[in-house]
């Protein structure tokens, strides 16, 4: 390697997309760089000038502007620009100005094109938003397939190891004393280095076999062997083993394939444990599935509340094992619904059967199957139209109180906006709900729009599912026919805007202000959910989950081709950044929240986050044009 350009390649090697290049390619790039200095305030690229180089910021800061002169982006050390011009017609579309004294590395076009060709990651990165985001999401999924739990995590104690000369009686005694179900049989090494390991006293051993509980029955007692038979005589060929860094999944397959219940685990050649099939089963029971069954076996609110830490543990484990946001969201929503159901069952046991039919409706993230661990409750009661307030409401008020209190005890905080079944306004017969929804759609007011954005994510958690289905159908039928409602919802959805960019230490706002943290829900996932909901309402979808809504939207002409995918990837990325941040908080014993600090975000993730915010920002702008205020409506106001 060229030491003389080390300075340059080391710097570039720290930043995406150069960080994934192999050394030879990186050397080539560094060796072809052209350097230039720009004093603060000077033009780097002028609009429409010809460009045949990729620009890399070695130090300083650069402002990218739109054709109109409006601020488009601000870039810092390690960022690149000019790639869009190179990929299109070699004309500068976004002029660049040095914001600080800046040292740039220019990478010639032929090198740039070669990189795009030679390295898939590089090509993905430099292409506009979607492929880069898509690449990030898929990269994460791929990486996690490999980071699945390793076998060594399941080992809790050292194996019982016996010399081949040990008698079967001594062996049985030692296995029992260790409360184990198998022992590994060792012999002095035969010199073959492939099987030899050295113990702490520097003796060389080889693993000859395994003796399990069932061997005592089938090979010793059934065969009538005397208790002083050396164990070495019982064992045949070398046992099947697994390396400690293999996955749990691989260990399970290995046991099934070979029809064995015990699997010696080796670190290189040294035995470090024996895995039993039951270890794997025990491990699997820590899953969310097990948690759900545990919820239904609880007989009191106190018992349910004690499961709250398990919810967090299951959440952390899912994320660590590489679940995507849909898997996490739907698992946690299922857990949440299970709490609701069990609380209702317990309440009905205490209060007696309900006087009229009802449906317990959940709203917000639980209805969308997008719950995380930082969540409050949004719910309501839809009662049968036979409901008579004076005769029946005392029962349902009490029922609601028990469920909402119980949810709060289990970690689902009370809703600050009083969107709970305890609120009489949200504890009404189906016909009243239908009237509510009609009014909200036909004559939207700021308050009604707020209600729409909460209640139009709706699902039944318990009781008469048909009630909620009727309401879902009603929305799907009426919303597309009310352009004024859609326009009002669209404008409402623009209240929460994403930041312009995410830098190493701060978040850059549209007005140029810097913040050192950002609420990823308020500025990212929530506006994205709002935006997707409006398109879903416009196309008459009755799906609740944002990704399912996007599937429905894709079947229409509402969005330009490919726009749905952009939103899908941006949504996934924003959700995962939020989820991973909460996992980090839990692991570091902080109260999980939605505030992320850019310093705690990985370099590459920061770039992707910026892209996702840009997708969101563009999509918000499109919303205004897609759902304009109909001409006659201004007269009515």
């Amino acid at each position, binding site marked *: 390697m060229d030491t*003389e350009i080390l300075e*340059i390649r080391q710097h570039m090697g720290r930043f995406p997309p150069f960080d994934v290049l192999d050394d030879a390619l990186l050397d080539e790039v*560094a*060796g072809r760089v052209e*350097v230039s200095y720009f004093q603060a305030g000077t033009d780097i690229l002028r609009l429409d000038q010809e460009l045949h180089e990729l620009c890399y910021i070695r130090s300083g800061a650069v402002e990218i502007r739109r054709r109109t002169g409006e601020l488009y982006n601000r870039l810092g050390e390690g960022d690149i620009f000019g790639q869009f011009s190179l990929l299109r017609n070699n004309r500068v579309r976004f002029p660049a100005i040095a914001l*600080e004294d800046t040292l740039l590395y220019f990478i010639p076009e032929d090198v740039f094109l070669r990189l795009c060709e030679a390295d898939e990651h590089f090509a993905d990165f430099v292409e506009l938003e979607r492929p880069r985001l898509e690449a990030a999401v898929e990269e994460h999924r791929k990486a996690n397939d490999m980071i699945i739990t390793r076998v060594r995590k399941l080992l809790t104690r050292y194996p019982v190891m016996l010399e081949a000369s040990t008698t079967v009686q001594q062996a049985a005694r030692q296995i029992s004393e260790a409360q184990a179900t198998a022992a590994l049989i060792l012999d002095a090494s035969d010199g073959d280095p492939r099987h030899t390991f050295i113990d702490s006293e520097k003796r060389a051993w080889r693993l000859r076999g395994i003796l399990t509980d069932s061997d005592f029955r089938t090979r010793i007692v059934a065969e009538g062997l005397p208790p002083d038979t050396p164990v070495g005589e019982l064992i045949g060929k070398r046992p099947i083993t697994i390396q400690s860094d293999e996955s749990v999944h691989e260990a399970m397959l290995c046991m099934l394939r070979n029809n064995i219940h015990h699997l010696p685990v080796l670190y290189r050649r040294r035995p470090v444990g024996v895995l039993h099939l039951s270890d794997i089963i025990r491990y699997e029971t820590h899953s969310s599935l097990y948690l759900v069954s545990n919820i239904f076996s609880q007989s009191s609110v106190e018992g349910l509340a004690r499961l709250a830490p398990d919810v967090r543990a299951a959440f952390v484990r899912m994320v660590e094992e590489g679940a995507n946001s849909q898997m996490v969201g739907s698992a946690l929503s299922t857990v949440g619904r299970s709490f609701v159901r069990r609380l209702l069952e317990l309440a009905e046991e205490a209060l007696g059967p309900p006087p009229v039919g009802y449906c317990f409706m959940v709203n917000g993230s639980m209805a969308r199957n997008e719950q995380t661990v930082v969540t409050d409750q949004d719910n309501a009661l839809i009662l049968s139209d036979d409901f008579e307030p004076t005769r029946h409401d005392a029962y349902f008020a009490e029922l609601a109180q028990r469920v909402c209190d119980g949810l709060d005890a289990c970690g689902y905080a009370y809703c600050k906006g009083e969107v709970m079944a305890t609120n009489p306004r949200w504890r009404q017969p189906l016909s009243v709900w239908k009237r509510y929804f009609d009014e909200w759609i036909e004559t939207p007011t700021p308050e009604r729009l707020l209600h729409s954005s909460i209640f139009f994510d709706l699902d039944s958690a318990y009781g008469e599912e048909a009630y909620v289905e009727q309401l879902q159908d009603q929305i799907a039928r009426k919303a597309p026919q009310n352009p004024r409602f859609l326009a009002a919802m669209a404008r409402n959805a623009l209240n929460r805007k994403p930041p312009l960019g995410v830098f190493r230490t701060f978040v850059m706002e549209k007005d140029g202000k810097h913040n050192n943290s950002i609420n990823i829900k308020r500025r990212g996932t929530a506006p994205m959910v709002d935006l997707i909901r409006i398109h879903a309402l416009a196309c008459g979808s009755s799906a609740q989950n944002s990704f399912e809504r996007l599937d429905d939207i894709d079947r229409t002409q509402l969005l330009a081709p490919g726009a749905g995918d952009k939103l899908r990837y941006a949504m996934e990325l924003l959700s995962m950044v939020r989820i991973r941040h909460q996992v980090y908080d839990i692991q570091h014993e902080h109260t999980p929240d939605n505030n992320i600090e850019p310093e705690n975000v990985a370099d590459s993730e920061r770039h992707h986050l910026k892209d996702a915010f840009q997708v969101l920002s563009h999509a918000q702008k499109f919303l205004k044009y897609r759902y304009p205020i109909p001409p006659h409506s201004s007269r009515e106001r």
Partner: protein
Amino acid sequence: MLSHRLSRRAEAREWPTYLEQRATETQSPLLQRFFAAGCPAPDTPIGEAPLVALDLETTGLDVQRHAIVSIGAVPFTLARIPLARRRHWIVRPTRPLSGQSITLHRITHTEVEAAPDLAEILPELLKTLAGRLVVVHYRHIERPFLDAAIRARLGEGARFPMIDTMSLEARRHRLSPWARLRRWMRRPPVSIRLPDSRRRYGLPDYHGHHALVDALATAELLQAQIAHHYRLSMPVHELWS
């Protein structure tokens, strides 16, 4: 002060004449080619001048006792420093290499032992410098060391105009009224070493004491100095010495 400036300017204008004269007088065909290529005309705007940044690493500071270990050079202009054209040579010093300078220059004994004598790379070195205006940081190393090394091999030395980025810094920080005021107030003088000078222009820190890295660092410094304090139309004779 005024007379000093005038004389410096007059001297500065004499460089082309000097180079022409050497071209006719020299006995060495190598030096003949080099001197005949000359340097940019004194009135050439700096923004249009072909430049080459040069740095020598030596075993010490005394031209009588120490020798050249490595040479880095990058042809450039104020617009661009193309790294593809970089040159770096390690040469076998005529005088022994001390352990200290080994660690300082990040060059090993084996590298030095395998290295050629400067005579072998001299044609290439002179070709890299020919016709370009040489840019260094502190000319009192590069000029005498190169002159002496060439004299030892070809029997005659070689001197040529240089832009010294350290003197450009000194003009601002050592000779200005403000600098004199600082001195009068017994404030320590502003450092004009390469890394400190670079920092004043927001240029990144490089690992110094590698001839090529220092040559690159010097080229970047000149770009920054001209951007901040001079115009691209500034005639080169105002800058060289």
